């Protein structure tokens, strides 16, 4: 390809999803050219970033060809037709392996597509491959992946967040304009925040869990990651909606998130700052950027008040009882009988022994810790004091939200207490790792909507800080409206997106043709 071609390919990877969709629909560029540009970018930078566990080059080009063929035939195209996407490896796919970052599912090819996968395909979204994650979505750094960590494109020695860290790294490294993540305790918002991109946890039940390999069923929520608020909203709309195959799917219209992302106006909106999250424990640069973001909202016409949510300080302990309890039950399915790894089956050992040997060999340390913790919390004699009490705390946290949303339209906080930490720093210190989810967990426990949008760099380390905007259940559009207003005002101040301030990744020789 000529020099001009390389320049164009680079340009294509810098476009937003909305721009790509418009260009494909107008015939300015083919979906195949767009897919090829992103596949080339993956070849060039993924040896360093390691966002992908599987790249589906042939499948992606075939899906792109299909979009081009439909366009040529004059068939209607969806709003994201021809846009490449990185899919978290926790969503089942018939044409790609689904490992959940675990050795126990190494190479597993599911016999069915997740509803989210199916909806993406039907919409003409081009799935580039499957992204790395903490094993079974348990972690905040991707260091719990059996296949090694992903790296933060802002600083390759640091974590990209987790558990959807492959997805956040792929989007921040321009390997894909869009990605799917899943959020159980912050696993979309925290990686989005530390990579300087947008990540949204929809209302629980707003997006389908069918084909999402379960970690904590009452919390797991798929959602979008993108470089702009509008792109996240476009993906949110395409992937969401009632699914009869998920018994907890909400049978209600998808909130008008795209319109809200375009509305981007907060004048007269009531914004609450959570008193309990104003205490210590933050990195100073996170606090500084958060304070500025609140001042910005005021300058844009929002009315900011402080709101107390007294039980939020118990969200972290309640979560680390509820999520492990559900995980200990859900992961019982990995029994070495129906799918996945089987170890030690030498013809003399019993099913029980083979099961224990397989789970020992197939699960990593964090998964083992959580299975045992959940087994403990659910044991007779401890149930009332741990699991039962945590469920009551969950009610109290939801009531705190209900009371807060009588006074304000949205609540704001920093998304994470610190910026991206160095790979290895917390790898074998579970309690330190758990603190990364301090501010994101309450919305998971209550099941409401929350987004993270970039709000600047911490001066001490030059790394991205995220602003979290929490909204009532089924009011996902409010999160988008506020996030879009913040994004527009800050980009005017910065003269472009925050991600433009990240250093260029070195492209590998032979790549980026």
């Amino acid at each position: 390809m000529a020099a001009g071609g390389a320049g164009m390919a680079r340009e294509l990877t810098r476009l937003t999803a909305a721009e790509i969709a418009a260009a494909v629909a107008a015939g300015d560029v083919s979906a195949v050219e767009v897919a090829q540009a992103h596949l080339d970018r993956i070849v060039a930078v993924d040896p360093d970033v390691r966002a992908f566990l599987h790249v589906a080059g042939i499948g992606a080009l075939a899906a792109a060809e299909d979009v081009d063929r439909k366009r040529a035939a004059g068939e209607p195209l969806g709003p994201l037709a021809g846009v490449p996407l990185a899919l978290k490896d926790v969503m089942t796919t018939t044409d790609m392996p689904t490992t959940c970052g675990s050795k126990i599912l190494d190479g597993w090819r599911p016999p069915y597509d997740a509803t989210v996968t199916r909806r993406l395909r039907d919409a003409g979204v081009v799935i580039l491959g499957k992204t790395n994650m903490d094993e079974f979505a348990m972690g905040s750094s991707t260091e719990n992946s059996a296949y090694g960590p992903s790296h933060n494109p802002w600083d390759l020695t640091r974590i990209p967040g987790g558990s959807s860290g492959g997805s956040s790294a792929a989007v921040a490294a321009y390997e894909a304009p869009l990605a799917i993540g899943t959020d159980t305790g912050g696993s979309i918002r925290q990686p989005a925040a530390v990579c300087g991109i947008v990540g949204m946890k929809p209302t629980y039940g707003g997006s389908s869990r069918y084909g999402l390999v379960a970690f904590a069923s009452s919390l797991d929520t798929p959602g979008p990651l993108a470089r702009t608020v509008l792109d996240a909203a476009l993906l949110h709309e395409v992937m969401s909606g009632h699914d009869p195959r998920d018994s907890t799917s909400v049978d209600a219209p998808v909130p008008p998130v795209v319109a809200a992302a375009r509305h981007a106006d907060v004048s007269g909106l009531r914004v609450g700052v959570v008193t309990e999250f104003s205490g210590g424990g933050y990195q100073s640069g996170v606090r500084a950027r958060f304070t500025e973001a609140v001042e910005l909202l005021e300058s844009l016409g929002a009315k900011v008040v402080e709101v107390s949510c007294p039980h939020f300080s118990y969200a972290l302990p309640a979560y680390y009882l509820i999520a492990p309890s559900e995980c200990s039950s859900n992961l019982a399915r990995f029994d070495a009988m129906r799918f996945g790894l089987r170890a030690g089956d030498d013809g003399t050992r019993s099913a029980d022994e083979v099961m224990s040997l397989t789970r020992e060999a197939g699960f990593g340390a964090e998964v083992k810790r959580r299975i045992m913790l959940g087994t403990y919390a659910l044991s007779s004699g401890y149930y009332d004091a741990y699991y039962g009490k945590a469920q009551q705390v969950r009610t109290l946290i939801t009531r705190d939200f209900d009371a807060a949303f009588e006074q304000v339209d949205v609540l704001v906080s920093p998304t994470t207490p610190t910026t991206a930490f160095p790979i290895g720093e917390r790898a074998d210190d579970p309690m330190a790792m758990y603190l990364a989810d301090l501010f994101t967990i309450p919305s998971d426990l209550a099941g409401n909507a929350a987004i993270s949008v970039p709000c600047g760099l911490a001066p001490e380390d030059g790394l991205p800080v995220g602003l979290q905007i929490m909204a009532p259940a089924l009011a996902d559009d409010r999160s988008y409206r506020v996030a879009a207003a913040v994004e527009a005002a800050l980009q005017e101040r910065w003269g472009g997106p925050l991600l433009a301030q990240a250093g260029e990744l070195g492209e590998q020789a032979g790549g980026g043709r």
Partner: protein
Amino acid sequence: MSITRDEVAHLARLSRLALTDAELDHFAGQLDQIIGAVARVQEVAAEGIPPMTHAVPVVNVLRDDVVAGCLTPEQALSGAPATEQGRFRVPRILAED
């Protein structure tokens, strides 16, 4: 409340995890620390507060009782570690004694 190494070994057996001795030593300390931290939920006065199991209260979600598509036997067996005559082959389930 603290947890002993023996209790962790018991939890591992209940969890069907054939942990090594080194793992037991390592996890016992970590689980003790985590359980100490999560026990904070017991500080909350929650008398009379109903437990919340789910964010969205839903009851008995059933589909219409009509025949619908499902996996073929070949698809269902496609990821199995071992199969025999169109079935999952499993190690012995009953003890010999």
